């Protein structure tokens, strides 16, 4: 539809703004709005699965990770302003302008090459997938059919990469060995109204996450999006509750065992006599549930790693100011 031009223009404006603004917090807010526009654009381009994933990731989780990581580190505004007036900074601004012109030129050359040589090669894969995905896999959503049946190894490596990313994050943030982290995370509860109403909302959000996971092969959504919704319950809990009864080590073990389950279950695709038409749909639902739980554990671990790091930084700051 022609409305998408408006969204594209807003996206370009927000990208420029988030690069050029000085304060990092504000750049992150711009990035959140950018990803909202991005997701609505995907929806208009007939990709509701992608739209769900981008909305879940971009506007809430990535924004939260950025904000927790830069909290307490942002420079004071006055300091930056006085830095901008010095002649050294003027030279730096001139350098920025120069590199901007260079990159505009390179981009223009690449675009002219692209639009000069693009050719239509047809869509044989599209024809095959769209014709036969219902009879081959039993799914009603072609995207789920592809990432859980035709190209399941992609999904396996994606899950592995998420696991490795989470392990690397926990490693870099120096998770304390042997201590019980649930004692360390002390939350500062939000206002009473938010706490009460989000307490009312938990069961519905959980129910909705399970609905998205289990219906992943029929409607847009699936394991990843539903798992992110379940992880958002943890995030809301952090803001609402006084005490978090969460043990991160148990979550990590659960994530690894869910990953093993995904590998074992996807190996069943190698046994064709086992996969009759009833079992295919059951297999899809089971895979979606496992992926959902794995992603839920993983994203919750990511969020709490950063939260733990931030509380540690605030503790050391307070100690150095006091002492």
């Amino acid at each position: 539809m022609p409305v998408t031009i408006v969204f594209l223009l807003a996206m370009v404006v927000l990208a420029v703004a988030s690069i050029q603004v000085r304060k990092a917090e504000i750049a992150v807010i711009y990035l959140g709005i950018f990803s909202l526009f991005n997701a609505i654009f995907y929806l208009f381009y007939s990709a509701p699965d992608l739209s769900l994933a981008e909305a879940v990731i971009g506007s809430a989780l990535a924004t939260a990770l950025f904000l927790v990581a830069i909290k307490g580190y942002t420079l004071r505004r006055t300091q930056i302003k006085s830095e901008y007036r010095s002649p050294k900074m003027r030279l730096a601004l001139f350098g920025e302008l120069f590199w901007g012109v260079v990159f505009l030129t390179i981009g223009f050359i690449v675009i002219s090459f692209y639009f000069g040589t693009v050719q239509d090669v047809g869509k044989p894969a599209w024809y095959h997938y769209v014709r036969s995905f219902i009879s081959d896999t039993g799914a009603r959503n072609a995207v789920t059919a592809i990432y859980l049946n035709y190209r399941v190894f992609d999904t396996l490596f994606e899950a592995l990469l998420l696991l490795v990313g989470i392990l690397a994050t926990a490693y870099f943030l120096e998770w304390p060995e042997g201590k019980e982290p649930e004692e360390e995370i002390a939350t500062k509860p939000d206002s009473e109204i938010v706490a009460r109403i989000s307490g009312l909302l938990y069961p519905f959000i959980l129910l909705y996450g399970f609905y998205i996971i289990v219906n992943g092969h029929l409607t847009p959504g699936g394991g990843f999006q539903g798992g992110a919704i379940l992880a958002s319950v943890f995030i809301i809990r952090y803001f609402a509750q006084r005490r978090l009864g969460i043990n991160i080590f148990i979550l990590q073990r659960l994530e690894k065992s869910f990953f093993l389950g995904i590998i074992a279950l996807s190996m069943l695709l190698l046994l064709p006599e086992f996969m009759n038409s009833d079992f295919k749909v059951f297999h899809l639902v089971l895979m979606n549930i496992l992926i959902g739980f794995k992603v839920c554990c993983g994203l919750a671990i990511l969020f709490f790693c950063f939260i733990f790091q931030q509380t540690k930084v605030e503790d050391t700051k307070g100690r150095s100011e006091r002492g």
Partner: protein
Amino acid sequence: MAELVSFIIFFLGLYALVVKRSVIKSIIALVLMETAVILYFVSGGFEEGKLPPISDALPEQMVDPLPQALMITAIVIGISSTAVALAMYSQLHRKYGTDDWKKLMKIRLEEDA
């Protein structure tokens, strides 16, 4: 139109990656570039008037589901790589107390010498 915009956003990200001296701006630039690539793939699989690939549409009316399935993978990998980058940034800032690539390089060189 969408392809053009994805090129523009990609080169904006590349520009910020090269020019900007703040570490957090570099991570934001990485996110922008990744978004631009996803945008390009999605707009490449779409034609005007096509419907989402869900079975209540006719097969001839559906868009190409393959780029979408691949790009969901890309979004998941994007969030994990962003998280790793942010964790590294956090430790870097805690250790050296600055947000500037040039100052960081200077401090590291003095440490080595």
